[in-house]
């Protein structure tokens, strides 16, 4: 799967629209993931998973910052995300199925807050982008 020029433009546009809220959206996406897909909580026994907790908000910001980095390097995701890829492969070892669940909840969060800006074309591009990021993060698993 390749990100076209149009995909990259769509993703950048959405990320700009989200602006300073991306950290908050990251936290909300995690809230949604833990509530809708409780099995995802098994990776966070060390965190307070009450919806909206400080732990979730902090982790959401971490995730959002990593995605912002990815948005800025869509021409070289494997390079930009190499350290995170190592982390997920050798330390965190999050089962690949979970990336789809978080990605879905990120889309739901963006749809919730961006309304009309979450066009079908933007939706498609974002889905492809998140899928590409997920592929890179699981690329060193075996």
């Amino acid at each position, binding site marked *: 799967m390749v990100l076209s020029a149009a995909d990259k433009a769509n993703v950048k546009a959405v990320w700009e629209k989200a602006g300073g809220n991306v950290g908050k959206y990251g936290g909300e996406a995690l809230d949604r993931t833990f509530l809708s897909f409780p099995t995802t909580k098994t990776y966070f026994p060390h965190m307070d998973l009450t919806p909206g907790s400080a732990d979730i908000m902090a982790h959401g910001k971490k995730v959002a910052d990593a995605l912002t980095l990815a948005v800025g390097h869509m021409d070289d995701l494997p390079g930009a995300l190499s350290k995170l890829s190592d982390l997920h492969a050798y330390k965190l070892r999050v089962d690949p199925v979970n990336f789809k669940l978080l990605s879905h909840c990120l889309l*739901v969060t963006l749809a*919730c807050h961006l309304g009309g800006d*979450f*066009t079908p*074309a933007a*939706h*498609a591009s974002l889905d492809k982008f998140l899928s590409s990021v997920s592929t890179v993060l699981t690329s060193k698993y075996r």
Partner: protein
Amino acid sequence: MVHMTDAEKKLVTTMWGKLDVDAAGAETLGRVLVVYPWTQRFFGHFGDLSSACAVMDNPKVQAHGKKVLHSLGDGLKHLDDLKHFYAALSELHCDKLHVDPENFRLLGNVLVCVMSRHLGAEFTPQVQAAYQKVVAGVANALAHKYH
């Protein structure tokens, strides 16, 4: 069978009441065809699906989307008995339409995105969680008669 509390069932019904089901149906099916273009394999007879605009404006897509979502709405009255309620539709999708059940999961998740877009802040994480149970239940029910 979906395991939902009474509170969740109430949330589901209340939120459904706020939705323009016709518009949401058309948008949901349209987005499935745009975001997952391989799903267009089932709709060769629908005419122009050549671009996102063509898909979203296609009257056959809109009409079929409405049909699908009204059926889902009917299912909301049978959350304790989805497999039985969708038995005939399940057989149809297997024997006549030959639709991979994975497509029901794709549509369910796109519906959740569409509801989020339409309902905004009211589509809270709790509402989403209830609807994820609904769409999973419906997808499983529609897959139940496959052989």
